[in-house]
């Protein structure tokens, strides 16, 4: 057997600390991404043309450039303009900015998919446009895009491994450390893959369950 289970079991506590860091990075990145995404979606749908253009440019740039380069820009590049962020925060900012672009498009699609009659009915009752968005459109759009948010969450768990490039001690970084010491890359990366899989699978199943609970006769 090529896989050294004893090595895996022995290094598991060390790896799990890294997995916890991966979860922390993912959690804050997705939270930042959801916040930015919502703003970007509303910006792109707004009637204020310059705002819509800026939001679209942001989306295009983030989607059209490699994430690892974005991480390098934040961590290695920003100090040149006087912004020093520690590695973990740099990772969260870069991943969150990236995720915000994708989630912005997801939210925009969700908002546009809500029947215009809903907005008309809410306006006819005297709600202001922002109230219509908050109480009528967004709650329905959110349920509709939940599967896509789930996908984004899973993607972010996997992409959080990229912050190992800037020495954040997350799962991938730590397994590389063990592998470099023992030369057993196969065992270590197989174990690492399994841990990522457990995390992504748990998240996707939880979101499926949540989606089933939130979906009301839609």
């Amino acid at each position, binding site marked *: 057997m090529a896989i050294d289970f004893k090595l895996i079991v022995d290094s598991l506590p060390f790896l799990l600390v890294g997995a916890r860091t991966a979860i922390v990075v993912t959690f804050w990145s997705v939270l930042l991404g959801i916040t930015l995404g919502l703003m970007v979606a509303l910006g792109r749908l707004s009637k204020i043309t310059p705002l819509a253009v800026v939001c679209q440019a942001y989306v295009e740039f983030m989607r059209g450039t490699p994430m690892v380069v974005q991480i390098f820009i934040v961590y290695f590049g920003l100090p040149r303009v006087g912004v020093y962020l520690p590695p973990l925060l740099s990772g969260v900012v870069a991943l969150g900015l990236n995720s915000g672009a994708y989630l912005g498009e997801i939210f925009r699609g969700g908002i546009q998919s809500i*029947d215009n*009659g*809903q907005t*008309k*009915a*809410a*306006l*006819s*009752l*005297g*709600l*202001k446009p922002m*109230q219509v968005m908050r*109480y*009528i459109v967004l*709650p*329905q759009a959110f*349920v509709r895009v939940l599967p896509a948010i789930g996908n984004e969450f899973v993607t972010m768990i996997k992409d959080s491994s990229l912050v190992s490039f800037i020495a954040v001690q997350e799962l991938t970084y730590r397994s590389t450390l063990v592998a470099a010491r023992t030369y057993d890359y196969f065992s270590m990366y197989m174990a690492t893959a399994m841990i990522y899989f457990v995390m992504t699978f748990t998240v996707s199943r939880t979101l499926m369950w949540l989606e089933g609970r939130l979906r*009301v*006769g*839609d």
Partner: protein
Amino acid sequence: MISLKNIYKSFGSNQVLKGVSADVAIGEVVVLVGASGSGKSTLLRCINLLEEPDSGQIIIEGVVVTAKGVAKHEVRRETGMVFQQFNLFPHLTVLQNITLAPIRVRNTPKAEAEALALELLHKVNLEEKSEAYPYQLSGGQQQRVAIARALAMKPKVMLFDEATSALDPAMTSEVLSVMRQLVAEGMTMVVVTHEMGFAREVSDKILFMHDGAIIEQGTPAELLQNPQHEVTKAFLSKVL
């Protein structure tokens, strides 16, 4: 109470309203009839500014609501509207559908809003459905909830936009009986409908629209029994 003066409205190059003027008095029931595309729904939507007229004036209780600087949401809270497709909020229960606007727009305390909602549900004969979601209701039930939702804002006028067109005859009669009840209570109403029997029975005035203009108007007796215009005659011979 409501005065429409020389309303024009175009969608792109398509001129939908071509200088429409009309008046609705307090307590009056005015029915708009005409073929599809004649502009009656657009005219109705101009009253609560869901459509903004390109030119002309709309005056509600002495206030020129088409003037610059008038807050549209303040106009709309006084004008209840019922839609062909009901447009209930699917993520909210029946009770929440009805209480949302009183709570968020009028700042009515929740308990008070709910008491009023239950009263209105009793009125439309659906008090047992307060905790149901819209998808659990039939079309006729949904439309009655939609009427209760509009009434919860205590509007000065109710606008009905083909409120029964998506319903079968049995459900149509449920909804019409609620509308009759409102007429009996003296509610001011503007109704777009194809239900000529209902128009004849409850309306004070029928406006016949053709190609973006009101070409004929009068009491039901005048207009339905003795139409003057050729287009009106042709239309009525098809629907009566």
